[in-house]
């Protein structure tokens, strides 16, 4: 395996700036890695090697000409297929958008291009980001690089797996109920959901508009901060975009110091419902922080236990409205019933053929929750729970600076294990959903491997809205402490995927 692909994005950026290595070389190394292992991992739905190398060559030319370039210029990046990309197919993991070439770039995509980064391709995801395992992708699941029989998390399993398997140094993800943080947890990577409104949603194929947020997927906390600094900021094309400027997240990592930091442990998310090894690594991480001067206190968030129920009313309600745009008129699939039909019949036949089972389930659920006679009891009540969850956060943040929880209840489960039990699947997001309901930012960083199965475990930190820098402070500090303890990055302990090259080649995937 080439050393170039094991560098962090920050390190690669420095090597590129020093002229030690070219962007074309770095991009080619990652394309070679994708060719070698993606037949087994299936993190990508689309790879555009030709355009990536052209972009890289252009950056190399600009650097040679003396242009002032950003810290991540020339660094390759993978993009979750929920973000529209001009000239690159964008499907959101759905058959209904197969082959669709958007005529414009989503704002976060435009920003990474303007920062000189090199898009490699689009990553796999649960269809329209509905899921926690990527098994709901219309194009087949992504496999966890730690164990190819297991889920990479979801919905952004493709972005997390691409980073964990060294196919890309970093990636863009989207998080509606944990779709950045839970994949980070099960793949030993870093994922951040910024404050709602910090990153523009313009060009992000909407799942639930009041919950969706775009964020970084990386192997180090500094890389997440550098990417966060590139994509955050006001965008007039998104009316929910926060107009105020942001402090540098990268500076927060570089100055990380937890002395005197008050960390609240959410009592309700530190229970027997969590796998023993997940809780063990969680508490060990807290002890490390305590030894550096952080103060650990228990806090109560009594309404978090209602968060999943509220989420599975609000999300389907918003999704059923957002997905009405897939009507076989302006983009994507059109299926005409035998013998023709009215526009409504064509629409119904198209949506029947183009949507997978989970999408249909949630659209019907949302249509029900919004229907006359049930609206107050379901959607109205869920919105009240949203208020109660926000009040729990407000009360907690009155006495602590950040909250800490395990990111998800278990390590990566086997592909297929929960596919036929939607309710069991929904429980994966118990610790991540409250942040989306309240709009507050969250980060998941690796906390170690669970002793019972050797699989990665994440720890989540949550901060008040607009205080994303606190996450980078505590995350950066803990990462340094854990690296010193482990003697190197956790991904050094992941299996070497090179043995899968032959298999992938034989299957014709390369």
């Amino acid at each position: 395996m080439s050393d170039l692909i094991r560098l962090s994005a920050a390190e690669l950026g420095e090597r590129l700036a020093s002229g030690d290595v070219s962007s074309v070389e770095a991009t080619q190394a990652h394309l070679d890695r994708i060719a070698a292992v993606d037949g087994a991992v299936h993190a990508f739905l689309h790879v555009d090697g030709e355009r990536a190398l052209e972009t890289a060559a252009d950056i190399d030319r600009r650097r040679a000409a003396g242009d002032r370039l950003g810290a991540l210029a020339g660094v390759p990046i993978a993009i979750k297929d929920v973000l529209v990309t001009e000239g690159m197919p964008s499907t959101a993991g759905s058959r209904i958008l197969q082959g669709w070439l958007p005529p414009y770039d989503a704002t976060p995509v435009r920003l990474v291009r303007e920062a000189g980064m090199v898009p490699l391709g689009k990553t796999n995801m649960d269809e329209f980001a509905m899921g926690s395992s990527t098994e709901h992708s219309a194009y087949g699941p992504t496999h966890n690089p730690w164990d190819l029989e297991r889920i990479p998390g979801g919905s952004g399993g493709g972005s997390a797996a691409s980073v964990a398997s060294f196919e890309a140094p970093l990636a863009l993800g989207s998080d509606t109920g944990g779709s950045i943080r839970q994949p980070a947890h099960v793949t030993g990577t870093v994922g951040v959901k910024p404050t709602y409104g910090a990153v523009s949603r313009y060009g992000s194929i909407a799942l639930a508009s009041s919950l969706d947020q775009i964020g970084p997927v990386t192997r180090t906390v500094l890389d997440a901060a550098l990417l966060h600094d590139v994509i955050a900021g006001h965008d007039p094309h998104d009316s929910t975009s926060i107009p105020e400027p942001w402090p540098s997240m990268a500076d927060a990592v570089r100055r990380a110091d937890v002395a005197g930091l008050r960390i609240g442990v959410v009592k309700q998310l530190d229970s027997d419902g969590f796998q023993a090894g997940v809780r063990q690594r969680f508490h060990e991480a807290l002890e490390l922080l305590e030894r550096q001067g952080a103060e650990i206190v228990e806090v109560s968030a009594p309404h978090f236990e209602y968060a999943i129920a509220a989420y599975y009313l609000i999300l389907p309600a918003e999704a059923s409205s957002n997905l009405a745009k897939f009507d076989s008129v302006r983009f994507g699939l059109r299926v005409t019933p035998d013998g023709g039909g009215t526009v409504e019949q064509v629409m119904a036949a198209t949506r029947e053929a183009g949507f997978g089972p989970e999408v249909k389930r949630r659209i019907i659920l949302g249509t029900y929750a919004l229907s006359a006679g049930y609206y107050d009891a379901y959607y109205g009540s869920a919105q009240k729970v949203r208020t109660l969850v926000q009040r729990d956060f407000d009360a907690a943040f009155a006495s602590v600076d950040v909250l800490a929880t395990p990111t998800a209840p278990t390590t990566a489960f086997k592909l297929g294990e929960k596919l036929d039990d939607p309710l069991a699947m929904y429980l994966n997001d118990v610790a991540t959903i409250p942040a989306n309901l309240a709009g507050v930012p969250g980060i998941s960083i690796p906390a170690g491997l669970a002793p019972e199965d050797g699989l990665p475990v994440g720890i989540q930190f949550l901060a008040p809205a607009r205080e994303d820098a606190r996450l980078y402070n505590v995350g950066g500090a803990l990462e340094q402490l854990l690296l010193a303890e482990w003697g190197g990055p956790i991904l050094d302990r992941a299996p070497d995927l090179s043995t899968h090259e032959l298999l992938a080649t034989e299957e014709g995937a390369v």
Partner: protein
Amino acid sequence: MSEISAEQVAHLANLARIALTEEEIEHLTAELGQIMQAVEKVSEVATPDVPPTSHPIPMHNVFRDDVVGDNVLSPEQALSGAPESDGSRFVVSAILGEEQ
């Protein structure tokens, strides 16, 4: 309240414009009943004194001047992904059926 019938699911599918098969309707009827039973939990704490929240970050309406913006697609771009167009318009099948 969580009793959902197959007829209701068929009606919802019609509202959502998805031509579900009989088998899908049967399957979804059972699943929706279970899911609704689980999410009804919200009513335990959603008392009349609690105000609803529709949006996580308090914001006022955002307006801009009513002028052409910087992100306008050309007709060719707007039609580029359409299943059917005549060069300047989206083409759809009949709006009204024979009986209408």
